[in-house]
């Protein structure tokens, strides 16, 4: 996994620099640094440094046959947390701030706190209601959604 992250960073650096070189001016008129000067300088350093990591990984792979790196623990829980959060963001504007917060809480607590129905139900209603009231008081402009149950 570490290897792929380093590769991703290297590819990003390459694309960032090439895009900067092709779309932005490195030097402007009268020898002044242009809009692309800083991005290209940063991109060049990024290519150099991320390449060092990739080369180090390749050498380690050649020497040991694999790369020693820590794996992800509780990957399933992490993935579910991300998925439920993505769903939360998708429904946030559609269902409104309050309802989507309640549903999100129920979803997350279903993963992490199974079997405690009453506790989960109470917590999933009380916390979002308090948050909603707080953000309304702060004029944060949370979405009302299609079912407007603003308090």
């Amino acid at each position: 996994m570490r290897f792929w992250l380093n590769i991703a960073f290297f590819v990003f650096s390459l694309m960032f620099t090439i895009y900067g070189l092709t779309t932005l001016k490195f030097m402007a008129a009268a020898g002044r640094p242009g809009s692309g000067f800083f991005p290209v300088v940063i991109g060049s350093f990024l290519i150099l440094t991320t390449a060092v990591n990739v080369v180090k990984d390749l050498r380690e792979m050649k020497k040991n046959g694999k790369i020693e790196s820590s794996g992800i623990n509780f990957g399933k829980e992490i993935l579910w947390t991300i998925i439920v959060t993505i769903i939360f963001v998708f429904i946030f504007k559609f269902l409104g701030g309050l309802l989507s917060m309640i549903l999100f809480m129920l979803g997350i607590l279903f993963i992490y706190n199974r079997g405690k129905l009453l506790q989960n139900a109470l917590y999933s209603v009380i916390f979002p209601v308090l948050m909603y009231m707080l953000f309304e008081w702060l004029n944060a402009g949370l979405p009302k959604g299609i079912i407007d149950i603003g308090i």
Partner: protein
Amino acid sequence: MTELFSNLATGLSVAFSPHNLLFLVIGVFVGMVVGIFPGFGPSAGIAILLPMTFGLEPTTAIIMLAGIYYGSMYGATITSILINTPGEAATVASTIDGYPLARNGRAGPALVMQAVASFVGGTIGVILICAFAPSLSNLASSFGPPEYFMIIALGLLLLTTMMGENKLNGLISALFGFAISTVGVDIITGAQRYTFGSPELIGGIDFVVIAIGLFGIGELLYCIHSGLHREEKKDRIKVTFGGKGFWPDAKDFIESKFTLIRGSILGFIGGVLPGSGATLGSIMAYSLEKKVSKTPEKFGKGHMPGLVAPEAGNNAASAGAMVPMLTLGIPGSGSTAVLLGAFLMWGLTPGPLFMEQNPEFSWGLITSMYLGNMMLLLVNIVAIPLFVKLLDIPYKLILPAIIILCIVGTFSLHGNIVEVWFLLIAGVIGFFMKLYGYSPAAVVLALVLAPLAEKTLRQSLLLSEGSLGFLVTRPITLGLLISFFIIVFASVFFSYRKGKNINNNNDITPR
């Protein structure tokens, strides 16, 4: 001297307004909670709660956010002492003697002494700010773009070299921060960069979104990876409050009287140095105390000065970190970078003239730190049972609350759902960065400093007609450049020596 007292009087009149006092109390309480909860350090706390302060006056908001910042140092020690788990990197050194003290039946005195040490450290730190910040402001007023550029470069170098194991990854993280900052409209030519024609990207990517993503969501995913959600109730040492054994005795104070002063001064110096912050300040204070002690063998076994030194150190360092931020506009850590970002959002640009032009704001903030430390001392002694109870809340119940705060807080910035997607992406990347030794703090620090770094670099090049000669023709810049190379060479040398030692040890290991 008269000027100092008049400035302090101005500050007191600001900080003592009922409105500001109320938000200071809220700030220090939230800071304590932030410090106690795992995976929710001051950087995350300030970033996540930043959107909530938009409805407040800038002075009130900054006073509250600063309260969260130094309040978290108090809270983080409670977990160090009672469950042997530092709530924040800056309290790692406090665990070494804090936990053994608690195990030896002296949890009460340890908790009270950490509050006293934090108070003394914070107070000495604030006194030193009053003494040094105006002089540094005067010195910095002669700085031009080349000096600024070199200070930023030096600050980032210090951050990456001091961040520990993988310095290359620290550097890459900082470069990523710079890269993200280039999205949007170029401040000098007005050209669009990396916007791909999208109107959402023209204004650039807000640093708050990235900070909340990296520190909030990224850290939360890392806590799940560490298995915190599986812990039902933490195995903490029980404390009996209010009884005779709860209070420290005279010996504790006598043993620690010079430790408090040494730790505070050293911590403050650590905090002023860009990139080092409270973590280094506390470790330096602990190491010095052990070196000068007549009984170094007692350290690590529950010796009060071993707890007092890092506690005074990390709180003085939190105050020290305010000096480069207020006078140069250059933060030294992830937390102060988020604070600086908050300043900028309110149109306040810290720098050499900042304290002179905004006396009410800057002195209001400094005096509020005095008051905040006093409140924290009281809160820590009177309300410790309440905060200790918070340790019993399982992480699985805190987790959804943090995500909601991150998402709703980000949305409330500009009412833009695209920014919430950026937050999630930053969170996932932040998790992998932390997992594989990159530095989310360096990303945020570079992101906040990038506009100034780019502006000053381009201005310097214009002044020197495109040549890099500006680095050597100005005495201060030259001095900073020499320091830069000394740090680079020292860092490479020590890494090489460390690698060689490891190889030698491997060679002599019997097979």
